[in-house]
């Protein structure tokens, strides 16, 4: 009698252990637990983001999330090294994903994903490109940014334009016609400010317009080898020169803070502006009277296939090494990245793009005709995030430093300059891999 009883007991224990392990491994006894979550959000956005924790707590009542904002990657790194890492985190800088994934500083989620059959295809391909590195999925995309062009419809109408530019030639014509000069020749209103380094106008938007690649298949930079880079820089410089570099610089010097209520586009100092989808929320809050429209950034002439795409960036959520409640943290990041209502709520409040296909088609998503084009840009198969490399964003900075000299007319030989740039980025890559086994 005793043996069957023991066997039954053992079976029961094993079954219950397996069952709890598979379904609700974390805090199977549902003891109340508080987990920590760090993000780079601040002020209003931090508050809006953390409202998602209310829904999470409703779903998992035994888990309370304590959020902290204004934490950038350097602080996260220091905390991981110092053994004070939070349970979960959100980063604004997917450029560093390669480092965090390959070093194990962010936990590899592959086992959890496989065990729970978590569907990664619910995210667009581009979002997966910056949340994992070389087969290691160490973070999940949670909201994204896409870039396009904003146009002041009243100004466009007055100048006789009724549709957005689709090529850079059209954009040039519009930018020139929409520009207004003061009697002394200084700039009163600018059609489109093409200065690299101003607001969001960095190389990425133009690179996308040309479809110019950063690296070849071997991971070596091709800025001097691919003619599209030179063409892109020449187009930008020609427009800068048309305004006059010094005049444009002076005009830009008077620009207010990008994220303030006096942003150039919002107050009509510029007729068109390259910007991210979040600007729609700023305009709604600060200048609801502004009549404007949005569209993908035009493609370069001869690169029509690029039209509709744009550069993509995004937030990623991860579990760092040293997380004291990794199972609960997994529930949280999974919720923030894939719970349709949570993602829709975050998108509606922050006006960032929802990262799952289900959230994209949710009826609860706020309808806004000016926001809609960014969904299309986000899901366009040619939209890209900059390639992840062992040097993070250093190659982008290196290019930007070159581009600001170029636009000022300090580069006399562009071919030579781009060759030097290739060498420099190549050297940076070499330096980062120094000491590695061949």
């Amino acid at each position, binding site marked *: 009698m005793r043996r069957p009883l023991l066997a039954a007991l053992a079976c029961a224990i094993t079954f219950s252990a397996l069952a709890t392990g598979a379904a609700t491994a974390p805090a199977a006894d549902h003891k109340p637990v508080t987990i920590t979550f760090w993000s780079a959000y601040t002020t209003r956005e931090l508050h809006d983001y953390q409202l998602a924790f209310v829904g999470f707590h409703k779903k998992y009542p035994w888990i309370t999330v304590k959020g902290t904002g204004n934490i950038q990657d350097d602080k996260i790194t220091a905390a991981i090294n110092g053994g004070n890492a939070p349970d979960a985190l959100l980063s604004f800088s997917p450029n560093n994903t390669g*480092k965090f994934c390959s070093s194990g500083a962010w936990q590899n989620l592959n086992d959890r994903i496989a065990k729970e059959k978590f569907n990664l295809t619910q995210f667009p391909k581009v979002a997966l490109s910056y949340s994992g590195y070389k087969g290691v999925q160490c973070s999940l995309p949670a909201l994204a940014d896409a870039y396009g062009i904003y146009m002041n419809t009243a100004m466009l109408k007055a100048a006789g334009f009724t549709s957005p530019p689709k090529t850079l030639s059209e954009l040039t014509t519009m930018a020139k016609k929409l520009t207004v000069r003061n009697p002394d020749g200084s700039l009163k209103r600018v059609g489109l400010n093409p200065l690299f380094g101003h607001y969001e106008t960095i190389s990425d938007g133009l690179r996308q317009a040309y479809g110019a690649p950063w690296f070849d298949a071997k991971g070596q930079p091709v800025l001097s080898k691919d003619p599209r880079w030179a063409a892109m820089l020449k187009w930008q410089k020609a427009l800068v020169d048309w305004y006059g570099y010094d005049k444009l610089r002076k005009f830009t010097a008077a620009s207010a803070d990008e994220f303030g209520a006096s942003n150039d586009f919002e107050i009509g100092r510029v007729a068109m502006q390259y910007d991210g989808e979040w600007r729609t929320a700023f305009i709604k809050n600060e200048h609801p009277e502004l009549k404007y429209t949005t569209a993908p950034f035009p493609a370069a002439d001869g690169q029509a296939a690029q039209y509709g795409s744009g550069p993509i960036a995004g937030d990623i959520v991860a579990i760092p090494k040293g997380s004291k409640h990794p199972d609960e943290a997994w529930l949280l990041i999974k919720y923030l990245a894939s719970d349709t209502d949570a993602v829709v709520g975050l998108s509606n409040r922050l006006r960032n793009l929802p990262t799952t296909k289900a959230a994209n088609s949710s009826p609860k998503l706020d309808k806004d005709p000016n926001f809609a084009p960014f969904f299309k840009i986000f899901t366009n198969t040619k939209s890209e995030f900059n390639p992840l490399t062992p040097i993070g964003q250093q190659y982008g900075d290196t290019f930007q430093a070159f581009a600001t000299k170029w636009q000022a007319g300090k580069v006399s030989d562009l071919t030579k300059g781009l060759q030097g740039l290739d060498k420099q980025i190549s050297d940076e890559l070499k330096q980062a891999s120094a000491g590695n086994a061949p």
Partner: protein
Amino acid sequence: MAATAISPAAARARRRRRRRTRTYGLAFLFLSPWIVGFLLFLVYPMVASLYFSFTHYDLLNSPRWIGLANYKYMLENDPFFWQAVRNTAWMIVIGLPLRLFWALMTATLLTMKVSGQRYYRTLYYLPTMVPPVAAALAFTYLLNPDLGPVNGVLAHLGIPGPLWFFDPSWSKPALVLLSLWGAGDAMIIYLAGLLDVPQTQIEAAKIDGANAVRRYWHVTLPSISPVIFFTLVTGLIWTFQTFTEAYVAGNTTSGQKDTLGEPQGSLLFYAIWLYQQGFRYFNMGYASALAWVLFGATMLCTLVLIKSSERWVHVEGNQ
């Protein structure tokens, strides 16, 4: 029993030893907080960073030994390093002497017997109390080419104002203006030195027929040369580490975070490049190598100054 007997002399020596040990022990006990702090927060980080400078260390993976590769890369393949060196050298060669000269002249004026002198002293010293970030922000506004009052005044006078922090030729001079405005720290030291110049010597020179300029050159300056030496050395070390004002001004005017010394790298100072490498690119091994080169350069320049001081610093009792 006889074998364990201790002679009185040996007993005295032992007592002395014990007393000495107790005294040293007590001294060591009182010193221990400093010693622990010194070892933990200075010696250990310095040794660690020296080791890291010979490694590739990204703060996340274990350091990887690469010998002198970081130093070689710095000298042969990193154009930003040389740009940062040039910008820092400019500040040392032009900015620092200007700042010290300005502080000395201000202090000299403040020694004159005019009414309300104490208010002037307070007024000139006050900018030193302003946090560097706030000061830099204020100057980016004051020197804004389009909206700033400085260019506004210049325009009224019919002079076209420069682009200041938006122009690579004017960004460093703008930074020097900011440093002149905040030169109160050096000014107050000079003032103390000037007030300490023996009046008897000045009067003697006057009797000998020396005019004001000669008295200043031959009596006042030699008398305060130790003070000048002190401000020169501390100013040199400070200038080698130029960071906050340039970083804030560069990022504010470009509207971007973590730029490489905008405009066009003209505000990329050595400490900024070191910071970017360490905390933006997580290239801590290379940042450590940069830090050690900075330490070496600072040390070398300081030693040269100390050596040269034998020729021009007049200490009482010496030539």
